[in-house]
């Protein structure tokens, strides 16, 4: 059983989605996350164990390697795809309550801004950290964040902006969220955003990169 978890961890860490996937070359023709997750379930390993002892540690290693500039985003994305293949098998257990995530993360690029590469990276990394994601997309106003919070009470919110003229919209969104759900933890990020700006608009955390967002989220969950 432990061997299966080790193999699954390795498959996710190196981005082996399934057996026919050619990537990574060193795992060619070997079982990927898809097959290994099915085997683990069939072997009677609890889904929560699969999540906590294989998938989350694998993505944690990936995040660390990325933060240390030992891999590029494509490798990280392949790992995310491998994790996605595994999560697809685990989906029924989430629905039944047999697995619990660390919480829900609502993320969006703020109104007037269409840049989503940074947002997508954060979203993927946080998901890899064991959170459910509600991605509201780009050009998102306060009303959509409030609505998503109503549907996901207690969720953490992430706001992204790349322009100096759209980062100001973060302030209005934070204020509106504070009216409707004052206890909500809000993190912000994007090229022009600073820790000082974060403090000024009353957000809780400024994430200078995706890994810092994950670390903050993990602190919240601990």
């Amino acid at each position, binding site marked *: 059983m432990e061997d299966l978890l080790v193999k699954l961890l390795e498959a996710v860490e190196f981005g082996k989605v399934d057996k026919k996937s050619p990537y990574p070359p060193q795992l060619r023709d070997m079982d990927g996350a898809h097959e290994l997750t099915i085997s683990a379930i069939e072997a009677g390993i609890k889904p929560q164990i699969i999540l906590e002892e294989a998938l989350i540690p694998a993505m944690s290693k990936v995040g660390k390697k990325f933060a240390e500039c030992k891999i590029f985003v494509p490798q990280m994305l392949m790992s995310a795809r491998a994790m996605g293949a595994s999560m697809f098998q685990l989906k029924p257990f989430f629905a039944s309550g047999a697995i619990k995530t660390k919480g829900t993360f609502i993320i969006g690029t703020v109104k007037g801004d269409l840049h989503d*590469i940074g947002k997508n990276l954060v979203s993927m990394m946080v998901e890899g950290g064991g959170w459910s994601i509600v991605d509201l*997309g780009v050009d998102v106003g306060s009303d959509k964040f409030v609505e998503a919070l109503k549907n996901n009470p207690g969720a953490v919110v992430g706001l992204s902006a790349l322009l*100096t*003229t759209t980062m100001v*919209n973060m302030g209005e969104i934070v204020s509106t969220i504070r009216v409707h759900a004052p206890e909500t933890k809000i993190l912000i990020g994007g090229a022009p955003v600073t820790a000082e700006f974060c403090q000024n608009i009353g957000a809780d955390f400024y994430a200078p990169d995706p890994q810092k967002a994950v670390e903050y989220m993990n602190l919240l969950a601990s």
Partner: protein
Amino acid sequence: MKYKILVINDPKELMFGIAPNPVKTRRGLEIGGGQVYAELNFTLPVMSINNSTLAQVYTHYREIAEGALEHALHMNSKGIVLEFETLLEMTKTPSIGVEIVKIMNGVCENYYQKHGLSSEIRLTPNDLREFERPARQRSSQHLEPMMELFEQGMIAGGDLLSIESTGGKEVSDEALMMCDVKGMVFALAVLGVRDMHFLWEKIVGLANKHGKIAAGDSACGFANTAMVLAEKKYIPKIFATIVRVISVVRSIVAMEEGAIGPDKDCGYEGPFLKAITGIPISMEGKTAACAHLSPLGNIASACADLWSNESVQNIKLLSGMAPTAYLEQLEYDARLMNAALHAGKVHSHILQQLLVASDIYTDPQALILSPENVIRISGELVKGDSYVANAKNGALAALDIIEEALLSGKMKLPELETGYLPILRDDLNSIPDNESEFIAMMLPLLDETKFTLAEYGL
């Protein structure tokens, strides 16, 4: 592709300040006609744009233009270009953008009439079609305000017309993050090319109607995004280099439709366009560090005709307002290049060699911008029978150049980077030259919910 041969074949003829087809402007600039001019780009400080702040917005732009032109006058500048790259609200509500052009044109005209200082405005509206996902490139209602701003803005005094259009971005965003070179060729050489034909036919038509200058369209959302991601170490520099070369076949469509330059600043594909078409180009390098970092601060100016700073906020620095300070930096760079030009070919070549030598082997993105490599790659970019084949050939030539530099020991890259060389080469070699075959190959691999083929005429 219309272009089959290079206008500039000799690397020695690919020189800053000199373009085979210079562009003369209303107030007397001759871009590419023997001297380099500064092109200042600027934006607002952190603020909202709405009815209650509009007066403040207009004041900012007036002060930027006045500050820049006054200092240009003080520095005995031979002329400058002000690039007005609009913010979303200014294209969504074209009257705002038009009013700003009017204000800045008034300032330009005043300095021209009173002091003989030549200046022009480059008007760069936003491509609003991105707001819809999937984008409706041809049927979007967002086209109307974009075109209205182009037309009314040029009437108001925006003489050089540019845009950073986004056709193909629905595919390229994911392809960039996955280092998917086939996806990038599809985004740029199939979708991008088709959208550029559609858009630039309209822009050139408007420019000709009003006697204005259709300038050019840089692949900012593609190749500059790649460069910035590589600077953050998100993707390999080698991949960003290849993306830049591929973007040439997309950006050159503006010229095929009748644009005459100067090509836009953040298009480091400009040197290739200059070699192929002979148009003057704007470039940005070390003086654009206010907007983004780059690995090609000096080499970017090797064949620039306008020298730009990309964008700087109108904030106060110790010396003065930031746009004025950046105008000074640009002007000094231009002055140095002009001094070399006026001293003769020997001197201008020595300066160019130094600009090249100081950057060339520090990064593959710099490597491909040396005049020799620009000419070599450009030759590959025009030899095929389709945009797809040209993109592929150009990218393979860039890979050859990178590998040669590595083999010679002149350039060093970590294994994390070089591991991508065979992957990219294999991917490129798998691309058929025929566009239809390539489309058939790619469609099953792409998420067709993210883009609408009919909006690209497919």
